[in-house]
């Protein structure tokens, strides 16, 4: 059974449509700037990849806005584009249309504001729980689009979207759905999350006056990740059924592998990453040297980028130096539970167009990072098979394999 991608939707700091996102990504445009949604002047990290011009009023009623957290609103925006892009799914039974979404933090903005009220002995808004719950976004997508089948949410921190897309692939393969709306979303540019990641020394703090150069995977001088927000949505279908209804096929999703380090709650582990990539390659039934491109997890932390580089080198041997690797996060920062969804869309666009977006801010690579990271300038390369990596707190490692249709 061949599972294909027939619809895509994006909202990110570098574009509020797939085309805009891809145009910016190919040109290495940065979406990182000073935080504007709250006063971050007292924080050590004062920058983020915020979606500055997002207006939920453009597509939601006042009542819907009142009942939804920003993460749900972003997911709905991207889902609207993806479901419009894939065309009419009316030929399917609504009970066979599934949603499988990833989010690391869910409605954390609502949690933070309601908790703050409670601590001041004020009453708590009635929609606190339905706005905060991690499955809120998936539920709203289903409700808005009458998707009455399986409805799942996967929360594995920074690998949430990769696991969600992998779970969606499993739903298709096991016959539990005829089409799945999948991907990931995150909206946690917030005082508490910024403080929390600061406390772990995970965020970049040295580029507050030069935000565009802060997210610099594989580069010397990188000092942590930059918080980002956004959503990426894919529509998966069986190839035969998609052709029958005249859908456009963007790529095949051919493999999924995931592992847990079972070692440390936040530190990356090379063996776990290798095992996830190997499992995905095995699942796709390809040889490692068939891989042309890796959309890396690459968050711009001093340790993480080296570990991922070493994992790629260990698994692919000499071929590691022949394939291209690039980091979407160099432009949008780390969108946590949305990152592999946005990375997947960048991967699919690369397969479709033969253009690999660059890793921005890579003038002087870290000597320990010596692969072809497509520095600063997009690369034209005919590619057939690509991986998208995502590694998350909890020791989760997930890899997806996409191929040309």
């Amino acid at each position, binding site marked *: 059974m061949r599972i294909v991608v027939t619809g895509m939707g994006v909202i990110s700091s570098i574009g509020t449509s797939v085309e805009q996102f891809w145009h910016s990504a190919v040109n290495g445009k940065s979406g990182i700037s000073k935080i504007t949604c709250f006063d971050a002047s007292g924080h050590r990290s004062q920058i983020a990849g915020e979606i500055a011009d997002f207006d939920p009023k453009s597509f939601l*009623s*006042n*009542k819907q806005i*009142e*009942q939804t957290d920003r993460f749900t609103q972003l997911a709905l925006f991207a889902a609207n584009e993806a479901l419009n892009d894939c065309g009419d799914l009316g030929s399917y039974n609504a009970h066979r249309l599934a949603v499988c979404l990833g989010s690391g933090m869910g409605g954390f903005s609502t949690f933070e504001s309601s908790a703050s009220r409670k601590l001041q002995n004020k*009453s708590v*808004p*009635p*929609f606190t729980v339905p706005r905060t719950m991690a499955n809120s976004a998936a539920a709203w997508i289903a409700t808005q689009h009458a998707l009455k089948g399986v409805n799942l949410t996967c929360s594995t921190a920074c690998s949430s979207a990769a696991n969600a897309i992998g779970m969606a692939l499993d739903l298709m393969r096991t016959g539990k759905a005829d089409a799945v709306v999948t991907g990931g979303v995150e909206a946690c540019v917030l005082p508490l999350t910024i403080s929390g990641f600061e406390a772990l020394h995970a965020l970049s703090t040295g580029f507050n006056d030069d935000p565009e150069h802060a997210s610099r995977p594989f580069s010397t001088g990188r000092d942590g990740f930059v918080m980002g927000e956004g959503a990426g949505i894919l529509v998966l279908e069986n190839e035969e059924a998609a052709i029958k209804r005249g859908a456009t096929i963007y790529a095949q999703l051919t493999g999924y592998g995931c592992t847990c380090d079972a070692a440390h709650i936040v530190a990356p582990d090379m063996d776990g990453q290798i095992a996830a990539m190997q499992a995905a390659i095995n699942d796709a039934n390809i040889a490692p040297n068939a891989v042309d491109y890796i959309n890396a997890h690459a968050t711009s932390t001093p340790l993480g980028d080296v570990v991922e580089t070493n994992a790629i080198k260990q698994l692919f041997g000499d071929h590691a130096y022949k394939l291209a690797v690039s980091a979407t996060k160099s432009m949008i920062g780390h969108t946590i539970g949305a990152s592999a969804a946005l990375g997947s869309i960048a991967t699919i666009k690369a397969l479709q167009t033969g253009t690999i977006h660059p890793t921005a801010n890579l003038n002087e690579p870290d000597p320990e990072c010596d692969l072809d990271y497509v520095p600063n300038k997009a690369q034209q390369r005919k590619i057939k098979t690509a991986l998208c990596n995502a590694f998350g707190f909890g020791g989760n490692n997930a890899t997806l394999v996409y191929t040309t249709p």
Partner: protein
Amino acid sequence: MNTENLEEKIIQFIASKVEDVDPATIDRSSTFETLGLDSMDRVQLLFDAEEIFDVTFDDDEAVKKFTCVGDIVDYISKTQSEEKPAEEE
């Protein structure tokens, strides 16, 4: 605030909370049902009203019996008039 002004303000507030209803048609007798407000919408409405009108809907028995706009107007007017003497002390 006199009762008439208060009523007008509450109706304006409720009008901002409903969808697909002509605000000009809303008056004291408008029921939540005709305004398309389900039970959760009513809870949200009262939560927002607490902030705007500086009132607390803590009389659960009375709140449960609310069926129309006039019930909210009367509750808020009554609460505010009860509070007045205290303010003047």
